[in-house]
């Protein structure tokens, strides 16, 4: 009986969906109609109607499949079906592209190199004890801020190390580093390029050339450094003063003054932690 039902109901369904032009919809509509017919059939059987009568009444209640077919075809227009499929494929592709683009971005943001190379120059020195004795002279968090063109600059850390080399033929070395965090909430702001034009002077009048001119003034004090992407919307300028000569100064001012800007960030050399 089940096979017989299967045959008559399915034949009805196949005739009803014949005009639907979107194949995935044909299967879905067919399953829905078939389930609906079986429900109707089961209800009649439970009410005590005989099998053949229940089948006949069910088919009668469903009406003529040729009359329903155009209505079903209109409701299940292929345009919307194909459009849904198109948007699904486009969504899948762009999801892949988003993951593909996000990986290097996130990698650059959260991964700064293998562990063996990850020392914090503000906490420790790279010079080993075998090469020289290094002492911390100053470690400070100036927390100086300035703003220009949508970039928010914060001078977060500074550290000064003095190294006395084991080899007496080498002169003592003073390493002075400072870190500026540059934040801009606009995703299109991009990498700050002005750091090459930062210059510095100390309370004694010593001048440090901007990084951009370092080749021309090799051997003179200068502001040097690099810029890396450290967090979303944030870049970190890891800078140092080459040929440091401000041992007796009270402060060092970091300046940017091109094109009418006037940014000054001060590092106080009299406070902070020292060894």
């Amino acid at each position, binding site marked *: 009986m089940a096979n017989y039902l299967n045959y008559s109901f399915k034949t009805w369904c196949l005739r009803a969906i014949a005009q639907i032009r979107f194949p995935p919809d044909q299967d879905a509509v067919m399953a829905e109609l078939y389930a609906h017919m079986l429900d109707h059939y089961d209800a009649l059987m439970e009410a005590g109607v005989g099998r053949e009568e229940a089948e006949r009444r069910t088919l009668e209640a469903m009406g003529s499949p040729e009359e329903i077919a155009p209505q079903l075809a209109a409701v299940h227009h292929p345009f*919307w*079906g194909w*459009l*849904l499929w198109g*948007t*699904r494929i*486009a*969504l899948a592709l*762009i*999801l892949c*592209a*988003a993951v593909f*683009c*996000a990986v290097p*971005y996130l990698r650059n943001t959260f991964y700064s190199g293998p562990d063996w190379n990850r020392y914090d120059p503000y906490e420790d020195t790279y010079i080993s004890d075998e090469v020289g004795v290094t002492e911390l002279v100053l470690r400070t968090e100036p927390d100086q801020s300035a703003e*220009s*063109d*949508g*970039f928010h600059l914060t001078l977060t850390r500074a550290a000064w190390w003095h190294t006395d080399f084991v080899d007496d033929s080498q002169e003592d070395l003073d390493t002075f580093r400072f870190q500026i965090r540059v934040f801009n909430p606009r*995703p*299109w*702001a*991009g*990498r*700050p*390029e*002005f750091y090459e*034009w930062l*210059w510095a002077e100390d309370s004694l009048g010593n*001048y440090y*050339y*901007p990084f*951009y*001119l370092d*080749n*021309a*003034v*090799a051997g003179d004090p200068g502001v040097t450094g690099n810029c890396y992407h450290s967090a979303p919307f944030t870049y970190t300028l890891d800078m140092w003063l080459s040929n440091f000569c401000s041992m007796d100064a009270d402060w060092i001012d970091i300046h*940017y*003054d*091109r*094109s*009418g*800007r006037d*940014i000054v960030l001060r590092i106080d050399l009299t406070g902070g932690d020292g060894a």
Partner: protein
Amino acid sequence: MRKLKRLWGNIPRRARIGINLLGIVVLAFEVYCFLGCPAFTLEQNFRRAEKANLVGPSEILAVYEPAGSDYEHLLVADDGSAVIFYLHSGSLYSSDALYYREKTGDLTVLAAPGIGYFPSDKYVLDLPIFVFDNYPKAVRAELEFTLSETVNDVYYERTFQLESDREEAGWFHFNIRMESESWYVDEWGWEHGTRLGNEAYLLYEFSYMCGYRDSFNLQPQPVAVRLYDEREELILDETVQVRCAKDMAHREREK
């Protein structure tokens, strides 16, 4: 999961299309952001570069499209006290360059970064030179300068004489095009220029002066400038120095 699938299936088809489209827009924006939010126009690119360099805002004077170069555009702008040259690569994978050069009084001579390229087997160098002036009566300008270099004990020298009519108020534009057809490759694979090639190199080095970092070993270059009025009478005959890095460093120190 099945419940979620059924719930999704109960949503009308057009609403599902709408949700998918919304997802596409959100993810497309994410991709755009991860690609560094590339600008849509040259000016937008330039304005962003200005901000990233903390210079400007400036007035865009001219845009050149150098043929055959790695760069798509050379944009010249003026912020009153300085001139900006902006080399735009037009690619996501190569970076643009912005050169900020302060003016030198009433008369400033600047060579834009040299744009060299190799069409087939020759070397071509286009070198735009600009004279920014405060002499509104001047309608024609002449430039004269001599470039020299000793390479492998061989001395090269060439004098360039250029002239240009004023097209825009406040500045003159000159262009030198030099073609060298005689490059040769030695037995070790090194490329050498012959005399013409070396003269192109002289010009290339001259254009290096625009980027101070690249010109650290160069000396300031004297350039004779002559300005003429409408009656062809000489109103200015002056020799100015095209600044290089050492000169600039000295000036920075004096500030």
